């Protein structure tokens, strides 16, 4: 499965079906029907049986869901009111193209655009203020409320409309690199060399508080969980080095700690050592913030040793996330190399 297709597929938290379908097919192709299951929250769990006894049970996890928007109602003029699903900064939304509804063979999604007052009508005060999400509207060209409600009833999901675009030296611009890049690597790792039981968890609902991973962790109860994620690179402009977190193009980012978990100390040391030995580009996340499935997996059941390996991403949770292919490949390579040492 290529990264372009994965990024362009729609799958907002709680409505990951299009991504789930693709992931499921790939897993079934690799391991057969009996090895792949869904859980109650929509995560896909693919189990690769152990070849030798006595090895730790390892889970590799990446989340399928992306941040997006949800239609809540229509105005008399036929504009759509919406709310965010996942953490979205209202400042990144104005004038962005969006797809309203999911593409299906019968019915394509609708083109939409997020509107706001034109600069000509704004007062100097208006220009300083950030419009909150409840004062923004999606325009789908509907003439009135009735038409808007018919085309996009409350509950309709909305995704960013950003074509997958390679640019610069090895860089990518796309929607949903968080975490389709991790999903992409997880699928590339289905054949990874490891003799113990390996569980591939494609989780749901990460952007809403790691809910999918909470359930998947409880069900699987792995000894070790490696989380393939993206993390925010704050390396633009004049940000002081101490606040840059990590830098795009300088390798996969290993976390010693974030807002919801402290990386297992042994795994942290092992990952850095393997990266050095195999010359895999690798950096350390130089900030403590955010959280991901590692927090949920570490605490589920009797606990798992966990760590996150993240691809540095600029403009995270926006319509235009940017990462480097170097880092995508480094995440895959480091995970693969680390598995052999477990």
């Amino acid at each position, binding site marked *: 499965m290529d990264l372009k297709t994965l990024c362009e597929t729609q799958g907002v938290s709680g409505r990951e079906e299009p991504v789930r379908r693709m992931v499921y097919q790939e897993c079934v192709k690799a391991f057969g029907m009996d090895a792949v299951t869904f859980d109650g929250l929509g995560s896909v769990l693919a189990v690769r049986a152990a070849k030798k006894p006595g090895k730790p049970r390892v889970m590799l996890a990446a989340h399928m869901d992306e941040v997006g928007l949800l239609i809540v109602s229509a105005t008399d003029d036929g504009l759509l009111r919406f709310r965010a699903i996942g953490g979205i900064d209202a400042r990144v939304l104005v004038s962005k193209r969006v797809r309203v509804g999911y593409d299906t063979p019968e019915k394509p999604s609708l083109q939409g655009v997020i509107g706001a007052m034109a600069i000509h009508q704004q007062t100097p005060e208006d220009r300083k203020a950030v419009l909150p999400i409840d004062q923004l509207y999606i325009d789908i060209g509907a003439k009135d409320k009735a038409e808007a409600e018919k085309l996009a009833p409350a509950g309709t999901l909305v995704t960013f409309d950003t074509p997958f675009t390679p640019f610069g030296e090895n860089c990518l611009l796309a929607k949903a690199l968080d975490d389709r890049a991790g999903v992409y690597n997880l699928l590339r790792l289905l054949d990874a060399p490891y003799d113990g039981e390996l569980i591939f968890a494609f989780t749901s609902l990460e952007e809403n508080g790691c809910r999918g991973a909470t359930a998947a962790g409880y069900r699987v109860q792995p*000894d070790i969980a490696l989380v393939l994620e993206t993390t925010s690179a704050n390396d633009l402009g004049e940000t002081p*080095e*101490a*606040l840059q977190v990590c830098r795009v193009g300088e390798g996969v980012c290993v976390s*010693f*700690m974030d807002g*919801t*978990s*402290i*990386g*297992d*100390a042994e795994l*942290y040391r092992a990952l850095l050592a393997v990266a050095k030995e195999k010359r895999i580009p690798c950096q*350390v996340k*130089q*900030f*403590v913030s955010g959280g991901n499935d590692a927090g949920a997996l*570490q*605490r*589920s*059941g*009797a*606990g*798992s*040793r966990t760590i996150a390996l993240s691809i540095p991403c600029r403009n995270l949770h926006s319509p235009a996330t940017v990462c480097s292919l170097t880092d995508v490949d480094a995440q895959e390579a480091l995970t693969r190399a680390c598995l052999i040492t477990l």
Partner: protein
Amino acid sequence: MKELVQQLTAAYGPSGRETEVADLIEKLLKGKVDSFHRDALGNLICEKKGTDKKGKRIMFSAHMDQIGMVVTHIEKEGYLRISGVGGLNVSNLRMRRVKFQNGVQGVMVEQPLKPGETSSLRTCYIDIGAKTAVEAEKLVQVGDMAVYAEPGFDMGEHRLASPAMDDRSACALLVSLMQDLPACADTVIAVFSTQEEVGYRGSTTAAFSVAPDEGIALDVTLCGDQPEDRKLAIDLGEGPAIKIMDARSISNPALVDRLFAAAKRAKVACQREVLPYGGTDAAAMQLSRGGTPVCTVSIPCRNVHSACEIVDLRDIEGAKKVLLAYLMG
């Protein structure tokens, strides 16, 4: 008890780095319990089987971790930028001596604030005497954790100060309890938990694997007997406190009553604790699996989360007597 507190508070162990404390406790309890187990999060789980097959499984939890600072970045000039491990207060940090696991020491400094800037960990750094990043990296890596370097000391006849009273004083209490606990009907599982200061993560997984019938957290609590700080009805040295509730758990009323009854039998005066904030391992045990009746027995402590946390040995001794009376009926 005093030696135990001194020994345990001297060990290094911020959240996620509790191995040194766990090793020490395992040594102290060798031969005193039936089994030791360390789980994925580093919890030390010590089980002493009860004599009655129908007895309860009672879990005690005292956390081994202390608050600390983690290095997030090394400046070109060799200064270390940090983030907090647990709840840090900048006013407690300024110009404090800190130390790393490998013995490297430094001073926590707050840089001059720009107009409109407020104090936070972002305005602080650790000076370890390095002149360049290269020199600093020979001593400390990004991801290494520091703790207050203040050595423990005696205060008057009964009181001790140290940066790790939260929660090593309760670890000492639990170690001492297990060392002196005669055979009893119920199975007692002493959990020395990890990562409490970042959201009782260790006790969450320990409670799941232990699956107790009853959970009692042992922790410190704040005092209300200092100048201009009289919000809480807890005085240092007036006996252990039995928690009625805090922000994260409401103690099981029947368990609270049984603990007060035990205190009466042991002739130990106890204080009633209502803490409008905070949480202990009891919160994790309470919500584990299908739910567990819980309570916290607290050691009053002044200046919690500072380099000089003060406890009174009589409160710890009192807590031990109450718990022995509770377990021995």
